[in-house]
């Protein structure tokens, strides 16, 4: 690994937050090579609200993993905040995930043994926040998403909508460059779903960059941009 750490810090505010160039991802299944993503060209600017849509099996999830730095591309380049992610090693990817990306999952993915505040603290823990700092910030964010009455509750004691709000709060913990949501309303009833959507829109209005993978046309309507994936390629983007 040749790139130095200072590279991770400096970031030109005018350049796009996320650039993918000829990005490909292949999986080897035995002797067959499965091309999941083919020549993805994608540019996302700061403050964008992007919906990624496509049928199942189209490569949406893989693209999401790619954007979330959970996986590395087979070929092509992926620049996140001015840094070429495809060159980073596992530890550096972990740090990038923690510092620059906020994850929101369909199934919330909270840690059941931890309460609301502790769940929100998890990403800060790995960024080296002190205990008091992270607790203070966690409470602040939790209040922001309307969880001030539930700070000491475990995920199992919360409704689906509340759990997803904890997840949103957690995604904000390290003030990431992009918030990456995978079907954020998929496991929710319509009422909680629209509540969550409202929070997302609210975040967008505050200048956050949002990338949402969804089937939900409603979300797509809210989003400023829609990227449609089909068969591993970008079929259409606005």
């Amino acid at each position, binding site marked *: 690994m040749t790139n130095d750490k200072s590279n991770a810090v400096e970031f030109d505010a005018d350049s796009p937050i996320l650039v993918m160039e000829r990005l490909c991802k292949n999986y080897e299944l035995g002797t067959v090579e499965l091309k999941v993503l083919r020549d993805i060209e994608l540019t996302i600017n700061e403050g964008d609200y992007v919906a990624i849509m496509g049928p199942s099996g189209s490569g949406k999830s893989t693209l999401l*993993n790619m954007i*979330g730095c*959970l*996986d590395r591309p087979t070929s092509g380049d992926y620049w996140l905040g001015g840094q070429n992610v495809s060159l980073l090693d*596992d*530890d550096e990817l*972990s*740090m990038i*995930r*923690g*510092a620059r990306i906020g*994850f929101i*999952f369909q199934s919330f*993915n*909270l*840690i*059941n*043994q931890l309460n609301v505040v502790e769940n929100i603290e*998890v*990403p800060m*823990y*790995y*960024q*080296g926040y*002190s*205990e008091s700092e992270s607790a203070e910030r966690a409470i602040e964010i939790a209040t922001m998403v309307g969880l001030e009455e539930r700070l000491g509750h475990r995920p199992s004691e919360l409704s689906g909508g509340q759990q997803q709000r904890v997840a949103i709060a*957690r995604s904000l913990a*390290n003030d990431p460059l992009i918030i990456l949501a995978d079907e954020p309303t998929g496991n929710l009833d319509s009422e909680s779903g629209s509540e969550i959507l409202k929070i997302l829109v609210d975040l967008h209005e505050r200048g956050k960059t949002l990338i949402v993978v969804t089937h939900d046309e409603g979300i797509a309507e809210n989003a400023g941009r829609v990227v449609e994936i089909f068969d591993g390629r970008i079929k259409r983007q606005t």
Partner: protein
Amino acid sequence: MFLFRFKRTAKLGIKSLWMHKLRSTLTALGIIFGVSSVIAMLAIGEGASRAAQEQIARLGSRNIIIKTVPPPEDNDVSGQNESMRVYGLTYLDAERFRNSLPNVEVVVPSRRIIQQAWYRNRKVAIEVIGTVPWYPEISPVRIRSGRFLSSIDMHHKQGVCVIDENVIEELFVFDDPLGQDVKIVGDYYRVVGVVSAAEAVSAANIIDNGAAKGHSQGGANVGNIYIPLTTVRNRFGEISVQYGTSGRSYEKVELQEIIVKVGAIEEVLSTRDTLETILSRFHKKNDYQVVVPLELLKQAKQTQRLFSIVLGSIAAISLLVGGIGIMNIMLATVSERTREIGIRRALGARKRDIIIQFLSETLMLTFLGGILGISLGSLIPFLVTHFGKMPTVITGISLVLAFGISGAVGIIFGIYPAYRAANMDPIESLRHE
């Protein structure tokens, strides 16, 4: 920063263990028993060895003990012939030692006879030790009151005796023993002194030699009564009657024991060699035995080392089993918490963070187990001493050793599950139900 982080990680580990109390307790039990058995076993081993070493040291490290033993070739015919068996150490032997050994400080010849002593209507089994006034020089007995035997007693074959505290307890309940007369086989002996009780320990006890049994040991004698050697020779004679299963036999033994005290420890072994040469020249029958406490001490230390190794190994195996138990549970925990690992990885945990998390859980478990094990392990020797009347010694080294081993077990058996957790694919783990 690191320390601070460490504290938080430790807290996280404890919290996670606390959430699975039963599982953690059961897992820690392996370590608790392992550590406590290491400590208890080493304490019992150490106690036994110290006791043995003390006993031997009591015999005197500068002493050489020569004992009369019945010659082996006579053993099988004993009782069949009515003739007298003459064997054992003689006054002449004592004289030879005094004259021909260069480094000798004192030579103490003794007769030892199992008898009964009477005072008024009380009776007690004792061992009569017919000896010389300088006997205290080779023995740990101390004079409590009165005096020891004197050369005047020796010279005039006086009917005096010195008794030890054990005998006093049995014979003189209320009376002051000094000046009283004790009756042994029809003769009266005036008590002139009281000495501390010598442990009922003789060289024969320690080397546990069957040949020496039956002669110097009468079994349940309570204590010793010291009488001038000349008096004993005069009054008891040298011939004893043995009643065997097939009749009577007579034995003539002059001395049961000669103890030689050497000037310096370095000269003990060379003096022993000279002494054996002298003895072998004048004793055609193998009717003596030379015991060197110094050598016994060395042997005892060696035996102890072996003993400790064996006990320690057994205990270490139980720790190993405990460690395997921990590893098993941790592997189960890791697979149970796959999703949590995936979440943490997605939220920025590096592989090493995951390793630290699971390793610290294991370490916490072994650490707490180690502490409980040390408490339990310190209690067991206490109970053994209290109820089993066995001496035990808990050494600092055994505590450190047990704790160190439990820590090592934690690291060794924690690292693989932690490593496995860290190397899970975050995408796969997130999908894990």
